[in-house]
C-alpha cells in the first residue's frame, strides 16, 4: 500500500518532466540553422528549386509558426503518433522500434554487468581495506574509469577479434546466416560480449567505488557493533546487516546513470557498428531529421523515467523509512 501510493505520486510527478524535456528539445532544435527539407534537398543533389522546397515544407507542416508546430507535435504524441521520417521514408515509430531492442539489450546487459561485478569487487575491497586486494581492485577501477570507452572498444576488437579471433568484431548478429532459436540467441550473445564489457567497464568502476565507500561507512555504524555483540560471524554480519544498507546508494546510482548510459551507447554502437538507438540519434542529427530525433528523445526520456520509477519502487521496497509519511 505504502509502495503503491509512492508509485502513484512518482508517476504523476514524472509527466511534467516529460513535457518539459520534449518542449525544450523542440525549441532548441528550432534555433539550429536548416531543417529537414534543406537536408533532404542537399541529399538529392543540392538543387535550389525554391518552389519544390516550399512545397515540401508545406507537406511536412514546416511552414507553420513554431508554437503551432509544437502544438501539432504534442497532439500527435498524445495519439502515440511519432510522425514520419522523411530521411528513412518510414514512420518514426517503425524506425525506432527496429533499433530499440539492440540498445535495450546492450544497456541492460552492461548495467547488470557493472552493478553485480562492481558490487562484488566493492565488497571484496572493503573487507580487506588497505590490503593488497583493495589496492589492486581500486587501481583497476581507476584504470577502467580513466580510459575512454572507444579506446577500450578498439583495443578489445584488436585483441579478441583480430588476433585471437574469439569474438566477432561488430554487428548485432551474423547477417545471412539464417540462425534460428537457441543458435541465434548464442550468436547475438557472442556479438554483444565486447560492447557490453566496453560500455560496462566505466560504470563498473563507479559502482565499485561507491560500493566500497558505502560498505566502509556502514561497517562503522552502531547496528553493526550490535550484530557482532549478538555473536554473528563476519559473513553473517555482512550478508544480514551490512549489504542491504550499503546497497542503497548503488540503487540510487542506477537511476542516475540510465541517462548517461544511453549517451555512452552512441560511442559503443559506433565502434562496434551496432544498429542501435544511439547511432540512430547521431545520424538523425547529421541529417536534420527532426521527427526521428524528437522521437528518439521522447523514447529515451521515457526510458530514463521508467528506469527511475522502477528504481524508486525498488528503493521503497529496500528501505522501510521511505514514504513513511515523514
Amino acid at each position, binding site marked *: 500500500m505504502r509502495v503503491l501510493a509512492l508509485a502513484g*505520486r512518482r508517476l504523476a510527478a514524472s509527466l511534467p518532466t516529460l513535457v518539459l524535456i520534449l518542449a525544450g528539445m523542440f525549441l532548441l532544435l528550432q534555433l539550429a540553422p536548416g531543417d529537414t527539407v534543406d537536408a533532404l534537398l542537399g541529399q538529392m543533389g543540392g538543387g535550389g528549386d525554391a518552389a519544390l522546397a516550399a512545397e515540401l515544407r508545406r507537406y511536412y507542416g514546416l511552414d507553420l509558426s513554431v508554437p503551432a508546430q509544437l502544438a501539432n507535435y504534442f497532439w500527435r504524441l498524445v495519439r502515440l503518433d511519432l510522425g514520419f521520417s522523411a530521411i528513412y521514408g518510414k514512420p518514426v515509430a517503425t524506425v525506432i522500434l527496429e533499433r530499440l531492442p539492440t540498445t535495450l539489450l546492450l544497456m541492460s546487459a552492461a548495467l547488470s554487468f557493472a552493478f553485480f561485478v562492481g558490487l562484488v569487487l566493492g565488497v571484496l575491497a572493503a573487507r580487506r581495506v588497505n590490503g593488497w586486494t583493495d589496492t589492486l581492485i581500486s587501481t583497476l577501477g581507476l584504470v577502467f574509469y580513466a580510459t575512454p570507452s572507444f579506446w577500450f572498444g578498439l583495443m578489445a576488437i584488436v585483441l579478441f577479434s583480430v588476433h585471437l579471433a574469439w569474438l566477432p568484431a561488430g554487428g548485432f548478429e551474423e547477417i545471412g546466416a539464417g540462425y534460428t532459436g537457441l543458435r541465434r540467441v548464442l550468436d547475438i550473445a557472442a556479438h554483444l560480449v565486447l560492447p557490453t564489457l566496453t560500455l560496462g567497464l566505466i560504470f563498473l568502476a563507479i559502482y565499485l567505488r561507491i560500493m566500497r565507500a558505502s560498505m566502509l561507512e556502514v561497517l562503522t*555504524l*552502531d*547496528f553493526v*557493533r*550490535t*550484530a*557482532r*555483540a*549478538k*555473536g*554473528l*560471524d563476519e559473513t*553473517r554480519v555482512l550478508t*544480514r*546487516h551490512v549489504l*542491504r*544498507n550499503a546497497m542503497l546508494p548503488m540503487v540510487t546510482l542506477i537511476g542516475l546513470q540510465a541517462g548517461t548510459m544511453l549517451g555512452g551507447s552512441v560511442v559503443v554502437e559506433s565502434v562496434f557498428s551496432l544498429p542501435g538507438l544511439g547511432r540512430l540519434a547521431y545520424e538523425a542529427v547529421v541529417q536534420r531529421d527532426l521527427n526521428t530525433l524528437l522521437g528518439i528523445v521522447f523514447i529515451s526520456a521515457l526510458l530514463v523515467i521508467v528506469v527511475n520509477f522502477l528504481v524508486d519502487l525498488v528503493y521503497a521496497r*529496500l*528501505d*522501510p*523509512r521511505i514514504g*513513511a*509519511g*515523514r
Partner: protein
Amino acid sequence: MSGPVLSIRGLGVRLPRNADRSHALRDVSLDIQPNEILCVVGESGSGKSMTASAVMRLLPANVAIDAGQVLFGGEDLVQASEARMRALRGAGIAMVFQEPMTALNPLRTVGDQIAEMFRIHTRMDAAAISARTLGLLEEVRIPDPRLALRAYPHELSGGQRQRAMIAMALALDPKLLIADEPTTALDVTTQAQILALIKDLQRRKGTAVLFITHDFGVVAEIADRVAVMQHGLVVEQGPASEVLHAPQHDYTRALIAAVPAIGAPAPRPVSDTNILQMRGVEKTYRTGGFLGRHARVTHAVRGVTLDLPKGATLGIVGESGSGKSTLARCIVRLVEPERGVITLDGTDLLKLRRREMRQAARRVQMVFQDPFASLNPRRRAGELVAQGPMVHGVPRAEAMRRAKELFALVGLDPAATDRFPHEFSGGQRQRIGLARALALEPEVLVADEPVSALDVSVQAQVLRLLQDLRVRLGLSLVFITHDLRVAAQVCDLVAVMKDGEVVEHGPVAEVFRAPRHAYTRALLDSVPGRHFAGAAPA
C-alpha cells in the same frame, strides 16, 4: 553463591602508537558477583567503554589487550578462540548500547532482529522463536508487543527502541549484561522507566549487570557497587553507599562535587524591568501532504508568554519535543513564529524587516548545543569569532584583535585563535561558541543546551563561566536545558514546557520545591538519584 560471574584481573589495553597515551586501560581489576549491578563511572576518555569492548573482545582494529585476564565463569576470555567468543557473545554476555536510534538495523523489523538471537544460538523452530520473541517484548513492557514485533526501528520511540534492545540482550538469559550508557540519550522520564526496567529484570532473572555511565545520579539510582575510572585506571571501587557518601579518592570527590544539587541556591533579587517579553508566541510545523492530503500539523510552540527580567537567567526546561528549542530559535528569529509578539527592550522583533533584523541580531545571540557540529571545521577559531563583527562592518584587524580579547575572556589562550576547531576539546569548543556569541556584544544570550554534550566536571566550569560573564557583562540569559539539576543551579526563573505549552513558570526555588503542575512533579520525580547531591556545591 559461588564466585564472581566476571572477574577482570590486571587488564591492560594498548592503544596505537600515535594516540595521546600508550594504554587505554592499565591494570584494571573488577569483580562482578551474580545478581549484582556494578556501575563503572568516569568521564569521556576514562576507558569505561573500552573495558566493555575488551570483555566482549570487540575492540577497534588497532587496539589490543596486552596484559591480564578476563575470567568469565572461570574461562579466560583473553585466550579464547574467536569461535568460542562468538558463541559467548549474546548467549553468555549480552550488551545494550547507548544510541537506541542507531543500534538497530533500520532495514529489518524489530521482531526479526530479536529472533536472530535465537536463530544463531539455538535450534528452535520458527514458531517457537516467534512465540519467545513476543514473550520478550511483553516482558520489557513495550506498548502493543504484537505491533512492535512487525515494526521497523524508525516507527518506535527512543524509549521503545531501548526496550527492544533490552529484550534482545536478555533473549538467551545471559549471565552477564553489559549496559553501555543505555539511558544517556533518553528523556528524563523515559530514563527513569528504563532504569526501573533494568533493575526489575535484573532482580527477577538474577543477571549480573556491568552498567557504564557518566552520571552519578544514575549511579545513585541503580548501583550496588561502584568503580570509578580515570585515564584508564580504576581509582576507587566499593559498595555504592560508601563511594557516593564517603568518597576516598580526590578524583571521585571532585566528580561528585561537580554534580549540581536539585535544590536551588538562595534566590537572587531580579530586576523589575523586563528586557525580553514574549506574548502568545506560536509556531506550527506542517509536514508532507501534496495538495493538503495527509498533512500533519505539529504545534511546536503554543501561546507561550514569558518575561526575562534584565540581568536574570530564565531557564526553559522540558523533554525532547516539548518545543523548547523551537522557542529559542523563535527568539533569535531563526524560525518565524506565526503569531505573537517578542519585544526586546521595547522593539518588536517579529515586526522587523530582514535588514533591520540583521541589525537587531547582534543584540540577541545564541549558543548552540553541539560543540562539535556548530563550528565550521574549515575556518580558524579566531575567524569564527571575528566573523560576526566583520559582517556588521568592523574592520578585519580590529575584529581579530577583539577575538583575542574574547578568547582571554572565556578562559582560552589568545594565541589559540589560529587553530582549527578540531584541535580543541569539547569544553574549549563550547567556550569558542560563547566567544562567538559575545563578539557582537549582545544584551540577551540564548543558550540552547550549552552543556549537555559535556562531561560533568567540564560542565561545571562552563556553567561557572556563564554565570561570571552574566554578572560582568550585564547579560540576560535564556537557558534551555533538559537537565533539571543544571536548571536549578543557574536559573533565577524557570518555565516548564510540555507539548509546546508552558505548563508552569516562576522562581526556580518555588517551582522545584513546591511544583504545582503534575508534569513538573513527574519530571522532578524522574531525576535519577534525586536525593543525591554533591557534598559541597561548587
